[in-house]
């Protein structure tokens, strides 16, 4: 279980990264915390000529607080979010989610950007950031773009980045003071990926209600009629029945339960951070 040999470089800035990517024409890969890429390199599931380490790049290691949102650099680690080293726009919801990713050793190195780019269907940030209506900030050679997280993730383990683009970070809107939030995931064991997960986000002031489920083997699924799910007029079972026609009984039960439990968290815990 040893990777094929590769070159390793630490670029000065994001421009150098995208130039390197461009020249390599698909034979180089960005590495951040190496928590997902490392095992795949070792298993030779991924073979690359070069690794470009963005883990120390100042541009992706920063956090910027704006009026309506907070920009969190792609290179910010789960542990830094968990510990409150960077500002949590949601006053605690993100910290809590970060603290339940894997175990501390993985959180110390794994990054929010790496997690989104790797796009494991069961990963926490995928569903949490989808639920929060966050945006991915992407830098290319000549231009930047900003797209909703749910569009950034295009499928299981696939994202919208072009060969010569880097994810700079995510922009997370600040919920209003009365917003309600529930995130629940089913893991049998501490540190394992979720078997089923659900978020519910209800911000009356901003007129946003979102409900998503994760760990589906595809990107998180935003459910229709989230308001009705939140107010109870649409049961979780009915809400997902149409969207997931061919899942087996046990799996459906777990997803339904995940929504029910996320709902109960959201209803019983109103303000952000409580």
């Amino acid at each position: 279980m040893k990777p094929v040999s590769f070159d390793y470089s630490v670029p000065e800035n994001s421009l150098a990264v995208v130039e390197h990517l461009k020249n390599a024409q698909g034979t180089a890969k960005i590495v951040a915390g190496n928590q997902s890429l490392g095992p795949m390199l070792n298993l030779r599931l991924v073979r690359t000529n070069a690794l470009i380490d963005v883990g120390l790049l100042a541009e992706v290691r920063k956090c910027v607080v704006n009026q309506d949102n907070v920009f969190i650099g792609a290179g910010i680690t789960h542990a830094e979010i968990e510990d409150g080293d960077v500002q949590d726009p949601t006053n605690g919801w993100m910290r809590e989610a970060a603290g339940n990713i894997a175990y501390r050793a993985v959180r110390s190195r794994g990054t929010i950007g790496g997690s989104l780019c790797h796009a494991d269907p069961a990963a926490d940030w995928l569903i949490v950031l989808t639920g929060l209506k966050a945006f991915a900030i992407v830098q290319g050679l000549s231009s930047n773009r900003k797209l909703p997280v749910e569009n950034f993730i295009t499928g299981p383990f696939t994202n919208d980045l072009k060969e010569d683009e880097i994810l700079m970070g995510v922009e997370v809107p600040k919920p209003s003071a009365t917003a309600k939030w529930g995130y629940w995931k089913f893991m049998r064991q501490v540190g394992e990926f979720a078997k089923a997960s659900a978020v519910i986000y209800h911000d009356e002031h901003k007129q946003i209600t979102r409900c998503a489920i994760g760990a589906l083997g595809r990107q998180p699924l935003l459910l229709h009629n989230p308001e009705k799910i939140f107010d109870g007029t649409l049961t979780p079972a009915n809400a997902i029945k149409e969207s997931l026609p061919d899942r087996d009984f046990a799996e459906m039960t777990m997803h339904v339960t995940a929504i029910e439990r996320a709902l109960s968290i959201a209803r019983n815990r109103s303000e952000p951070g409580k």
Partner: protein
Amino acid sequence: MKDPKSYRSNGIGASVKRLEDDRYLRGRGKFVGDIRLPGMLEIAFVRSPLAHANIKNIHKPEGVEESVFICEDLISVSGIKADSGLPGFKSSVQPILASKKVRHVGEPVVACVAKNRAAAEDIADSIHIEFEELPAIHDMKTAMDAGNPLIHESWDKNCFLETNVETNFDEAIISASSIVKRTFQTARQCMAPMEGRAVVAQWDDQLSQLTVHSATQMPHIVRTGLSECLGLEEGKIRVVAPDVGGGFGYKGILLAEEVFAGWLAMKTGRPVRWLEDRREHLTSGANCREHHYEVVGYADSTGQLLAVSCEAIVDSGAYSIYPFSACLEAAQVASILPGPYKMLGYKCKTYSVATNKPPILPYRGVARTGVCFAMELIMDALARDLDMSPKDIRIKNLVKKHEMPFINITNKHFDSGDYCEAVERASTAIDFDKLRVRKQNCNANEKLGFGLSIFCEQGAHGTSVYRGYGIPMVPGFEQSNLRLTPDGGLEVRVGVQSHGQGLETTLAQIASQELSIEESKIKVVHGDTAYTPYSTGTWGSRCIVMAGGAVSAASEVLAKRIKKIAAHLLQASPEEIILKDGKAQGKNNEIAISDIAHAWYRQPHLLPEDVDPRGLEVTEGYKTVRDTGTFSYACHAVIVSVDLELGNVKILDYVVVEDAGTMINPMVVDGQVLGGVAQGVGTALFEEMPFDTAGQPMASTLADYHLPVASDLPPIQIIHMETPSPISRYGQKGIGESGAIGPPAAIANAVNDALAPLGVEINQIPITPSRVLKALSSAKMGLNS
């Protein structure tokens, strides 16, 4: 047997801190992977990606021919053969590298050698093998069907061995009023010692010797096996097991990889090594526990067990492994299924079925874990049928204290114990209050349940038991060599291997008890064929009884010789001398044991004329009073909660009542029990290597193969009973495997207790959320019987 009451605080019975932990806790253990030799080459194997296929062609790319080896290169090397003498046993030969055919995924086909592992893997990447795929035998239940492709062409069906025992069955069931029939299934598992398998081999011209460092539980057996396969005299082979990071049976085997490394070291004249990685471990090492049972239990209206009948299939995989063979598991099923119970009649058929899976190996507890699961679930099923409590039905049918020693229906000689007391104590210790309180407060989607299991464990069984199996290894006398050093220290040499059992401490405690030399001055030497007497090694919960007995026997002889010299030096008679606090004491005077050593080695003019010329070095052999084994036993009691919406099972309280006979070191016994219970929880709830219909193992990383982790384990309360065994030196009984045996049965019984009101019963492990949810949904739809 010696009187356990006479023990000192730092000898037998003391919780002496483990001497070996000093180096382990500081990260200074020395494992095979820590060995660096100049010019060492590394091996990467190309393993079969298919479960069953003919090999058509192997392409070695140009330029790497010298570094690539296939079966045809291994001139005069034989494959591994491990036949059983049981009538009807079908023989298999496990090739060192597969030549014409592959029989399971992960079987080594080509070996690539380079200066490091990465480079060897690069070469392995470039090898192309053409296969002609054959249908895979992936399901033991249909493996023997006519018309199936044969895994071994010369056989008539895919089965190593069938056995059939029947005792008094038809008469016994005449008055049966409760008859319960169940099908049980256990999963194929991967034993998971922290250190994988590992070999470093080196040829030494000066000694004309092949030295093989191997992470093995049985260095002497590996030497014999290597000798047979390589055609090299045993005297030209030295096998060393340095620190070994856990075994559990996974390392109780002669490996094809070991044979290849030995051959390669001789061929190249350079040191070579192979370290198993986790992927190799998971794809080619899922090799234990897979059983299928059809069991019928018969009881009369008072709950008295009349008889049990069983048809058991063991998925033995593709080859018979060395030295335990392909049928040890099934042989144990037939002989141990009745457990600690009395019954009038019994019959059991077993099939050691061959499949295209890795060959089955005995894992801690061997068949007992599966057997205990089957038997204890039948007992609970009978209890439910008869409206009795799980405790009452057990008390009614267990062998009673006053009946000991007891010969059971399969002729097992239970040496001693009070099984009913163990059940009583476990039922008292479990936190029923917690259960009641939680039951009142638990919400609609949670159910709580209580479960019991009890079993006895034959350990340290010897010649008379193993000669019946007729496998390559039959244990006889266990030997130990003791040497008093010139400065009064003691070297204790044993042929077993310690890899977590704490034998460097417990064997020292025994020698210390007998000779009064401090444990810190005693060096236990093990795991090296050059230094230690022959032994079948560490398996079968045998070391503390057998090696411990041997150390005791040798100590006794050494004590006599010490006393003889002491008597001369003290002008006393040998009978007067006692050994105490490192001294030989006469009535009025004393002399340090170190001075006696000094006299023998450095001032022989001081010795008596008739001193024993064999000096202060002793080798003695030992057997238990009868070699049918000690029977330790345990009762496990557990409370679980089942989440009805997620199918998730949580353990709330866990109690083990354990009788290891006389405990040489209670702390070490606790450690063995705790580790075993953790593995048993894995078996009960998490561990499973699924194979698809093509015979592909479906979990290739630890993200898919779930081992129990710290947070899955509740605090485990251990209660000791100490009924000495009448057949061992101090009354000690084998305890090494025990912890891993009881949990699946107790946990499944607790889950079934929780789900009984819903009409649901689960008879398959591991009990995963999807299995629970499936069972709940079929019950809802009225499908559950």
